[in-house]
């Protein structure tokens, strides 16, 4: 192995030959990411084309920034961008905040069996799809049969048309996000708490610190690296193309057009432009816009995290 350094002048070919078994094992994965990740990256050029699916990328006309001009002319893009950013900020703060509290409280429960049961139940929604989430939510919000309107009715309150009142969705969506994800974050935090040495708590106990003070002064700061990673990952997902977790925005409101102002985000907007209108120009321009904003967001949050704690940064 050590000899490899001395023979640095050997050409690429002899490295490939020497470790040919490794490179053969690498080949399917490498080819795959080139095909499925890098070719689509090059494919963003269609945002500058009047793309014709029959002629393909080579045959379509180049139109410069026309698609972008067209896109930014409508108010919709601004609206969905704002929605995307605001919802994700709310998700980030409430999701991580609730999870931190939940993890600390679960850890304070002496009864192992109960603590384990709570963890299991909290994590279960994480494994369900948003399509299933749509069904679960519908059983509560259905106008004529839903549990919530029945409950309101028993207090003499008029039934609410949940699927046509945008106002409520600004709270329903964050609640749904928390319902699905808090268990996931909490389990990560719980593992982090388990890794904190008990000496800190014993010392604090001797100094007369209350449980609450211990949580604020020891647990929360010690969990900071995990919090930073979660923030970074979530910030990246915010604008992460079609492959982030946007199913909730598409499924939960059940395609109710009245709600779009409150529920539409960039992904649903792109998806609908492509799927229902077949508008390649618009949706690819919006897609490139989204990818670029996402890229910048990751760089910014990474830079901030780097300032705070070098080791937690992604690069």
């Amino acid at each position, binding site marked *: 192995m050590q000899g490899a350094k001395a023979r640095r002048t050997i050409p690429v070919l002899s490295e490939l030959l020497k470790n040919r078994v490794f490179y053969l094992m690498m080949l399917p994965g490498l080819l795959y990411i080139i095909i499925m990740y890098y*070719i689509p990256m090059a494919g963003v050029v269609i945002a500058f084309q009047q793309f014709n699916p029959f002629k393909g990328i080579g045959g379509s006309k180049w139109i410069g920034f026309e698609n972008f001009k067209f896109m930014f002319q409508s108010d919709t893009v601004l609206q969905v961008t704002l929605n995307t950013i605001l919802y994700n900020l709310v998700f980030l703060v409430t999701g991580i905040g609730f999870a931190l509290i939940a993890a600390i409280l679960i850890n304070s429960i002496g009864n192992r069996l109960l603590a384990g049961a709570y963890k299991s139940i909290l994590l279960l929604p994480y494994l369900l799809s948003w399509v299933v989430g749509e069904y679960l939510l519908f059983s509560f919000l259905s106008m004529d049969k839903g549990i919530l309107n029945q409950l309101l009715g028993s207090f003499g309150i008029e039934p609410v048309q949940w699927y046509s009142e945008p106002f409520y969705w600004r709270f329903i969506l964050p609640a749904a996000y928390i319902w699905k994800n808090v268990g996931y974050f909490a389990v990560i935090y719980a593992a982090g708490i388990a890794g904190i040495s008990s000496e800190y708590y014993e010392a604090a106990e001797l100094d007369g610190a209350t449980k609450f003070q211990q949580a604020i002064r020891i647990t929360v700061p010690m969990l900071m690296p995990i919090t930073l990673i979660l923030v970074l990952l979530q910030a990246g997902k915010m604008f992460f193309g079609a492959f982030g977790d946007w199913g909730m925005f598409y499924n939960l409101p059940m395609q109710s057009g009245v709600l779009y102002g409150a529920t539409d985000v960039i992904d649903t907007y792109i998806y609908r432009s492509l799927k229902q209108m077949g508008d390649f120009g618009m949706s690819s321009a919006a897609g490139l816009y989204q990818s670029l904003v996402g890229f910048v967001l990751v760089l910014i949050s990474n830079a901030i995290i780097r300032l705070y704690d070098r080791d937690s940064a992604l690069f």
Partner: protein
Amino acid sequence: MRPSLSISKLVVNAGFMIYSALCIIPMLVVLSISFSKEQSIFQGGYSILPRAFSLKAYEYILGGNTPILHAYLVTIAATIAGTVLHLIISSMFAYTLSRNEVKYRHIVSFLVVFCLLFNGGLVPWYILLSKYLHLKDTFFVLIFPYLVSSVNVLIMRNFFKGIPDEIIESARIDGSGEFNTFVKLVVPLSTPVLATIALFVGVFFWNDWFTAAILIENNKLYTLQFLLQSIMNNIAYLQGNSLVEDIAANLPDETARMATCVLAVGPIVIAYPYLQRYFVKGLTLGAVKS
């Protein structure tokens, strides 16, 4: 000191019980609707326990050649095939990136990480799969887009790095080829990480509605989640599709809809107690990944 402590414990426990109830009650309602008489739903609305018990919805769904059974088969096949292929390709890929003797591992690792930062977006992805790879409306398209994920490769690579070099070195001295070492030695040593990733990927394939929604038109290839979504939404573009119209016309509507949902969730909930610890382990692995 004692009594106040137990009061705070009581409050914490009560809080968690309420939250747990909130997690479980929606599932109970859907379950209850699926076991109710259609008539009782129409009269009294949804409830946590069935007002009038009936198995009609399940009899309908499971009796005979309904689209739901077909979607079940498609989903099971995609989940198994997708998970196996994902594991094979990604684990070999990750292993080569973990070995010091592979000189170009840094460049390739960078290529993997960069996919996390930037992506081409939905449209080029769609055009690639449909126009250039000609995978639209094939079973394979349900699997192919998700065979390698950067995050999973990085998690596996970090796990493989933790395997002591001496073990691999000694296998080499015993005359084992590199591939043989990987299959016979590294894979068995890595079952915790492989099992966890298999579970995550499996759940992903099971829950995937998106791929079918955008790349499948042939109703023989509908996945369970997509069928579920179509039944619920009855979206405009699906009208005129005889299969979905059949469902709309012939189902014991509400109860069967919810029964389909129960069948889609069922396998996950039933397997959950056994698989849970792998999930927890995997989440922890992901967290210390950086």
